């Protein structure tokens, strides 16, 4: 069996004069958490809507490889979808809405109600089963919304901003839940702006900007291909002169973070060890460590770079 659950080839979607998605190609592997990232207006929502068959691409192909599927967008029963722009019936009891959503996804009414109760119990809302959604806090409403998308244990789930509105504790618990879903065989396509969380959970990433692919691959591949430099964080005693380090040919840029802490961006192609030795010999160090390049930094750098490239293309 092909290991790709989803294969997207050169899809294009144009609205009036603007190409929302421009020649996008990627694949999602079975059982992985795949992150689709990009700034606002990058074309993520349009891409997701095309994947789900809500709108059709102008050209290109989208092929699903789910159990008993013919390649077409999967039926509701195999699919879970948590849209970014979301809401549920506010004046209806939570259990009733969840049961309805489960039934629309192919469960029997009894099964849907039973699973809804289990999920509510799992997220700590078992005492709010018969409450109307509008009486719940925003965070709890988010939990109910999440349950409505995955209640039927889909083979493929698209979770668009699943962490928005959640406090750090609940974000952690949702990461656990997503991990559990993955273990149970659900392939997850995730969109989120919380890069730290994406980094913890996603195995592969596609970064889009202005409808195009900017970065694509595993987290390691992304880091490797990124032009973002390594950072060495140095803490020195107050009034220590760091001019020597600042002027080192290995250093691209220096950030002063306060309390004697400096972040030295090492030029690409230079091993950090060289700078470590130099630092140890020229200043009185309190602390020194290498800061791994964060997805956040890679994201910002890549989006800026791709924006410049696209603008450059436009002016040529």
């Amino acid at each position, binding site marked *: 069996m092909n290991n790709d659950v989803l294969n997207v080839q050169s899809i294009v979607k144009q609205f009036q004069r603007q190409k929302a998605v421009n020649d996008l190609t990627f694949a999602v592997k079975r059982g992985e958490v795949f992150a689709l990232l990009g700034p606002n207006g990058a074309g993520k929502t349009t891409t997701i809507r095309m994947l789900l068959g*809500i709108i059709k691409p102008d050209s290109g192909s989208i092929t699903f490889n789910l159990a008993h599927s013919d390649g077409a967008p999967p039926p509701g029963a195999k699919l879970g979808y948590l849209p970014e722009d979301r809401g549920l019936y506010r004046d209806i009891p939570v259990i009733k809405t969840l049961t*309805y959503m489960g039934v*629309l996804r192919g469960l029997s009414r009894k099964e849907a109600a039973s699973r809804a109760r289990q999920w509510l119990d799992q997220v700590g809302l078992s005492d709010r089963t018969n409450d109307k959604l509008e009486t719940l806090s925003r965070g709890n409403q988010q939990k109910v919304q999440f349950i409505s998308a995955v209640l039927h244990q889909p083979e493929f789930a698209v979770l668009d901003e699943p962490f928005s509105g959640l406090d750090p504790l609940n974000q952690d618990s949702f990461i656990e839940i997503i991990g559990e879903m993955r273990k149970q065989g659900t392939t997850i396509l995730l969109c989120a702006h919380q890069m730290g969380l994406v980094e913890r959970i996603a195995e592969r990433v596609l970064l889009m900007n202005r409808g195009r692919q900017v970065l694509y691959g595993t987290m390691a591949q992304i880091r490797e291909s990124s032009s973002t430099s390594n950072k060495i964080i140095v803490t020195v005693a107050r009034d220590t002169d760091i001019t020597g380090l600042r002027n080192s040919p290995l250093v691209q840029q220096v950030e002063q973070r306060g309390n004697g802490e400096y972040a030295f961006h090492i030029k690409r192609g230079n091993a950090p060890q060289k700078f470590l030795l130099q630092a140890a010999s020229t200043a009185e160090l309190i602390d020194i460590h290498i800061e791994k390049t964060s997805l956040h930094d890679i994201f910002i750098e890549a989006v800026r770079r791709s924006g410049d490239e696209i603008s450059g293309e436009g002016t040529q």
Partner: protein
Amino acid sequence: MSYFRTVLEISRWEFSRWFKLKGILITFGLSVVLSLAIAGGRYLLDQNSSSPIQIVVLNAELLPQLKTVGTRIVVKTPEGKSEAELRDAVGRREIDGLLILRGLDSADLIVSKSPLWEGDLQQILTAERRRLKLEALEVTADQLADVMAPVQINTSYHELSRGPSSAAEKIAAGLLILTMLMGVFNSLACQMVSITGEKQLRVTEQIISAVTPQQWIDGKILGVSAYAALGTAVIVLSALPFIFIMQLTGPGLPIPIDLSSPLNITLLVVVTLGGFLFWNTFLAAFAATINDPNTSSRTVVLFLPLVPLVAGALIALKAPDSLLTRTLGLLPITSPAVVPVRIVLTEVSIWEIGLSLVLLLVATWFMRLLAGRIFRIGMLMYGKEPSLKELLRWMKEE
């Protein structure tokens, strides 16, 4: 899950969103209470109006044979009391009136409050005066009856075997149209809240990844139509306690014979249900193009297509057998109102009803497909409402 099971689940959801058992029970309760109140009021009025009106007549020899049969007036003699004493008795309301005859042509009436029975009294006096005058002219009662006899007109109807519409039939037809319109307006409110509400709550996108737009709109059309039908049935049924109590406590209400025919009732129900389905397909498609009914200028336009429905009903009420009415009875946009009126007011051939129903169902089917196409794109348009040009383009899209 099969297409139809999904549609039924959605329609069940839509129906249960609006269905409120408490509301139905309150409607029936109010009907019973109102009926009992009306019956009680009528009973009290009857009680009050059955007490006799006591009038003392002075100079009664001027009109000696006052006939009060059929009225509440009782004529009494003064029993030796003077006019002043009798006036005081009126003031104390011991008697209802003092009548002082001044001759054959005039009389004075002394009362303590405005007499509702004055008309009866005048008829009694006039009758006796007329008798005395005729007696003086030596005209017998038979001769008088012969002179006063009216010309008799025998009316017969050539065009149809059925008689003309009675007032009861016209009232019944009018009430049918009223309930039909109430059902349509009820549907309008439900579809608006249901579809635009879901757009505003952002429920749409999640559901549309589970079901097709056509399934969704079909479910909404069926669910809201069923609710509108139930609402209409509740209105009709809540009239039954009223009719029953009126029959028990008084002369009752005239019910047109045609409304007691099972065939006619079945036809009325089928046509009404067809009408609800047709109008709900239209309303659902329209609602999908509206972003926010509170701010949209388009909601005013929504009422325009309902104008032919009302106009058709009025034309049918006035001339149920005219060529225009018969034509309107075949057009889906007017037939749901025209056909029920014709069924109540006149003889409608079964082929006319059948053809009307077939055309209505065909139009509903095509309208449903168009509604699905509009809904598919319109439901994901937030903020901007589509132009007429865009709508026409969507309707053509596969």
